[in-house]
């Protein structure tokens, strides 16, 4: 049940992101350059409607069974977002859209995905040894 549920939600997510053009490099770069409003508008609508939806979920009957993880500012928030921003800007890709690109036939996205795995492992290794930042990754 749980497996099927996660798989189905993922299927929908991938399907929607392709049709949004959220995984389209050229669209992303035109958004970064402020040449095209479309993806920017998509982001604004997404976040606003999600805010409404999650506010409803917090008051709903099932709220007690949902864990609303907190995301306080912590050591690493700014530096991490900067490092991610560099990768995002160059590749026009985030962890979700890299999988979308692979699925839609851009096999070169395997390089991005491999890089993401290596980067996460690298962080975990360094964090275990030196930094000890609490793990509340989304």
């Amino acid at each position, binding site marked *: 049940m*749980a497996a099927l549920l*996660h798989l189905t*939600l993922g*299927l*929908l997510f*991938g399907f929607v992101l392709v*049709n*949004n*053009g959220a995984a*389209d*490099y*050229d669209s992303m770069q035109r958004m970064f350059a402020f040449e095209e409003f*479309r*993806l920017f508008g*998509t*982001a604004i609508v*997404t*976040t606003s*409607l999600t*805010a409404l*939806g999650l506010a409803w979920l917090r008051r709903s009957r*099932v709220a007690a*069974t949902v864990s*609303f993880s907190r*995301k*306080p500012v912590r050591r*690493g*928030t*700014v530096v*991490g*977002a900067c*490092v*991610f*921003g*560099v*990768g*995002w*800007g*160059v*590749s026009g*890709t*985030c962890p*979700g*859209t890299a*999988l979308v*690109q692979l*699925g839609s036939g*851009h096999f*070169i996205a395997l*390089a*991005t995905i*491999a*890089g*993401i795995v290596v*980067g*996460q492992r690298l*962080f975990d290794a360094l964090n275990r040894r030196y930094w000890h930042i609490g*793990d509340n*990754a*989304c």
Partner: protein
Amino acid sequence: MSGFWPWYWGGFAVAAIAVAYPYCTGRLLGVSGLYARALAVISELFSPAPQPDEDAALLAALEAETQAEFGHPEPLAAPAPTGLDAVRRSPTRSAPLFLLGIIGGAALAALLRADAVDPLKLGQLFGERFATPTTAVLALAVSGVCIGFGTRLAGGCTSGHGITGVACGERGSLLATLVFWSVGVAVARLCVLRIGA
């Protein structure tokens, strides 16, 4: 390239999933966190099986003896949760299947759209900026390392911080999103200047 959904429908569809996900699974949606969980599950599969715990075995034997002697205690009320409730309440190792789902859903959408897809490029602009396959693979691999490292350090990515966290008004997410948007815009601008000059 055109032929994408208009921004309001696209935004509505993503939001519907970002709300349906915690409604169904009991956890907020965040893709970079799912990568980390996928890695954890995979390394668990390949690590040697844990040794049976002697203390636990002893406790179980004691419990069995006690129950044989004094009979079974009445179970405490609370009927077992069913359906979605059961999924929400139990920790699951199947969450990373969401990532496989993304690949499958994208493949399906690409088949239906029937756009021309170059497996070694991400688009026309991409091809102009990274002319040879070597530079393209290198650029993406290095970007990937930045994405993986940065999202773990910041505790989220475009979905966990940018959509869910900002929607919840979490301060860490608002700050992270502001920073990665600004840096993304600046870096994309630098790419254009350097390559387009």
